[in-house]
């Protein structure tokens, strides 16, 4: 959710019970402004909160003018002092995929993971237990990256592709109409498109190149990984990700108010097929 309209957004997203206490709100409003100034971001998003056992991580993201350019991610434990996280790499994701369980809330905490390494010496194969230590900060980076890639949502039309390539916020976006707001196809993944290239020419024919340049949600796997609800008597659409429980996207049809927030444990729900 946009840092500038934080209060309204929080109110809108509150249906999932994920709020911020007044002191957190106040400090976020203050500190995100400073973050925007210091890091020279075009736009600052309050991304959400990852619940740890000891402390919570508050996450903010800074966007450059091109909305799809790699984002900078910052975290804070007290909502005032922000630290920049390194960009996520494939290696990090692979490395941290072995870690399970809850976050601790201490970025310097190290998870220990024992791996069995096989070393070949001539014909003999030795098996050694190697203890790999993984910093929680690394895990945080990779989890945020995974969530961003999997379930960050933007309504259709909120962004548009300029003729020169970069993607900008569509200032004339006036919100989805009610009938569109009820369709999953009106929502896009807020990341570089992946599936779009795989579409057939026939499917591409109907797309508006300046608006339909992102992947839509409707083809997410598994089908049914989103729960869509109309709240407040159709005045608010709420999308909840079931794959990453805790991610809530909200949009008030016919207004510009939209955004997503993640409040959760930072664990993927791999039981989803059993639960549907």
């Amino acid at each position, binding site marked *: 959710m946009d840092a500038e309209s934080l209060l309204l957004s929080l*109110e809108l997203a509150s249906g999932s*019970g994920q709020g911020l*206490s007044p002191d957190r709100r106040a400090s976020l409003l203050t500190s995100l402004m400073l973050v925007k100034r210091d890091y020279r971001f075009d736009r600052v998003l309050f991304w959400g909160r990852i619940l740890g056992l000891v402390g919570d991580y508050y996450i903010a993201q800074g966007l450059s003018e091109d909305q799809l350019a790699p984002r900078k991610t910052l975290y804070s434990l007290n909502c005032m002092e922000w630290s920049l996280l390194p960009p996520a790499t494939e290696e990090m994701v692979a490395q941290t995929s072995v870690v399970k369980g809850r976050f601790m809330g201490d970025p310097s905490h190290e998870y220990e993971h024992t791996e069995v390494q096989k070393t070949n010496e001539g014909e003999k194969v030795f098996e050694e237990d190697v203890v790999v230590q993984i910093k929680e900060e690394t895990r945080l980076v990779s989890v945020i990256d995974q969530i961003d890639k999997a379930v960050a949502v933007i309504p259709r039309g909120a962004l548009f592709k300029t003729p020169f390539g970069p993607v900008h916020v569509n*200032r004339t976006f006036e919100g989805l109409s009610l009938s569109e707001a009820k369709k999953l196809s009106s929502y896009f993944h807020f990341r570089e498109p992946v599936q779009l290239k795989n579409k057939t020419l026939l499917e591409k024919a109907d797309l508006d190149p300046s608006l339909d340049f992102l992947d839509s949600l409707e083809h997410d796997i598994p089908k049914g990984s989103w729960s869509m609800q109309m709240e*407040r008597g159709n005045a608010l659409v709420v999308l909840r990700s*079931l794959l990453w429980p805790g991610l809530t996207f909200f949009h008030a049809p016919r207004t510009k108010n939209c955004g997503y927030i993640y409040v*959760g444990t930072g664990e993927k729900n791999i039981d989803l097929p059993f639960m549907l």
Partner: protein
Amino acid sequence: MEDLTSSKQEKANQDPGEAERPWEEVAAFSQGPESGLSEPLELEQGPDTGPKRRGSPPQSPESRASTPLDDLAGPGTSSPPSLPQEGSYTPSPPALARQDLAAPWQSDKTTSVNPEAGTPQDHHLEQSDKGEPTASQTCQSEGITFRQSQQTKHHLYGPEDVNHNNSKQKELRFNVFQEEDSNSNHDLDRAEPGASEVAPSMLEIAIQSAKAYLLKTSSKSGLNLYDHLSDMLTKVLDERPEDAVDIIESISQDVKMEHFRKKLDTLQNENEMLPTYEIAEKQRALFLQGNLEGADQELEDEIAENALPNVMESAFYFEQAGVGLGTDETYRIFLALKQLTDTHPIQRCRFWGKILGLEMNYIVAEVEFREGEDEENVEEEEVTEERDDADSEADEDDEDELPRNFYKTPQAIPKEENRTGANKYVYFVCNEPGRPWVKLPSVTPGQIVTARKIKKFFTGRLDTPIISYPPFPGNESNYLRAQIARISAGTHVSPLGFYQFGEEEGEEEEEVEGRRDSFEENPDFEGIQVIDLVESLSNWVHHVQHILSQGRCNWFNPIQKSEEEEEEEDEEKEEEKGEETDYIEQEVGPPLLTPISEDLEIQNIPPWTTRLSSNLIPQYAIAVLRSNLWPGAYAFSNGKKFENFYIGWGHKYSPDNYTPPALPPVCQEYPSGSEITEMDDPTVEEEQAFRAAQEAVVFPTEENEETEDDEEEEDDYDQE
């Protein structure tokens, strides 16, 4: 504006011409029905086709250039008006038409040169005969639009137009071919303006054609680019957005959308908005209920023993903790709870929480009925019991000589009575505040046991069947109730000392295996320091009974029950007993009011996280407790008050993946023993030996007969 000024110039310049025209006009109007008819037609066309005709007016004055009177006016009128006209409109079709028509006119007009040249008035009159020329005349003096119409008429009627003079033809041709030099040569007076005329008229044509192109109406949308651009610019100028050039595409789109929306608005909106109105109408009832007529005294009495919880107060504290619903939703729920307590005989009510669903959510209220006012349940139970009996009778009918099915379904553990154990409270749910509250059925142990093995999302519709591997006995309402029971048992905590075991009730409950399952508020509770609550988990205690793995809070001995039942079943049971033990050890969980510090760890993860709501102002902060076992369960305490709240999907946390329970063991076949195996057939030697043994006993004389009998008997045995 320029048009007006130009026309004024005309007036100023050619007073004589002016003087003539007015009565010419009159004459024209009086002329004939034709003129009267044709004029209105042109005027009507004006808005659509008017622009196209604009290019022509310069020609009409020029056409009269041959006449001395008009000479003065001609240059003055023709050149200045032409500029503004072109500026505002560019008709190419007329231009083309002009080209086409130019040739025929030439031939026609040559014949009519003389009369016109002779008398200008005649010329005018003749023109007025056709109707259109008069119009043009009036226009010349008054405004340009009329002139344009005239010009088109010239084109239309050109071929028939016998009276036009040569000069007119020439002018037309000049315009078409852009040979304006000839114009300037015509008269000395004209020379000066003529020079200025050259450039504009060249531009004129180009612009006209461009303008006409822009005005081409799209066959799909019926719009034309010219209007669209002017709309866009109007919008930009009206709204004055920053960096308009960046967003011009979107503005263009918006402008177009506006065109299309008009048609759809009325039909679509009403349909789409219906649900909004519907829920608003229902919620209106919530806000109005306070105004219902009622005796004030009664109200006061009710307030004294109010069952309604102070939802807003606890919501305030939960907000400090960063949990909870939005302010307005909380208030709606508050009102909905009020509605619930007003319509049901409720002694105590509590906002339990919210369970998220796929399509709709559940708002859950926990209530306790007043004594003796929850009889509906009893009836329901009886009905189900009867059904059970019917089933068992049906089984008995099947009795036959053949062996019956020894398998008996595991003994159904009866559910706990209302007001005890897991059924201590009654739960009402609704999807949205304002919608009707639905009472959940009481929970059975079987449901709880099965619910522990499955993990399903709630859909939001209570009658959804739960399809799962251990078949769930019931639909979503039962599953919801079971999860509520589990969550309550796990996460409802209170500060140490807030509740104590009631003395009287405690004695009664001792019948139940000497365990107490009831408590009362401690009147002497003095509160606990918030810091202590945060730092030590042992200051929080469970005040809801632990649910045993049996699915009940209070132990139920399934064996005793079986003995009470039919004898046959007892015999079967005995075998089982023999295998197990004579007496199943009573399952015991942690007793009531056990500190949560004794809760089991979840694989090295502490089951609870405590926190102070604000580190900045610790003296007014509250203690916040978060369950790690049931994500979404929270509790707060400010030392004296406390509340529990759950919001989430209704699932238990486990660091491992959900694994479906293992299949039940496959039944072993009957062990191959003496009852199953048979002896080999008796061999000849054995039979002979047997016979010999018999012969030794029996008299030798009867030998033959007996042997036959024996053989028969032996055969019989074999068969058996």
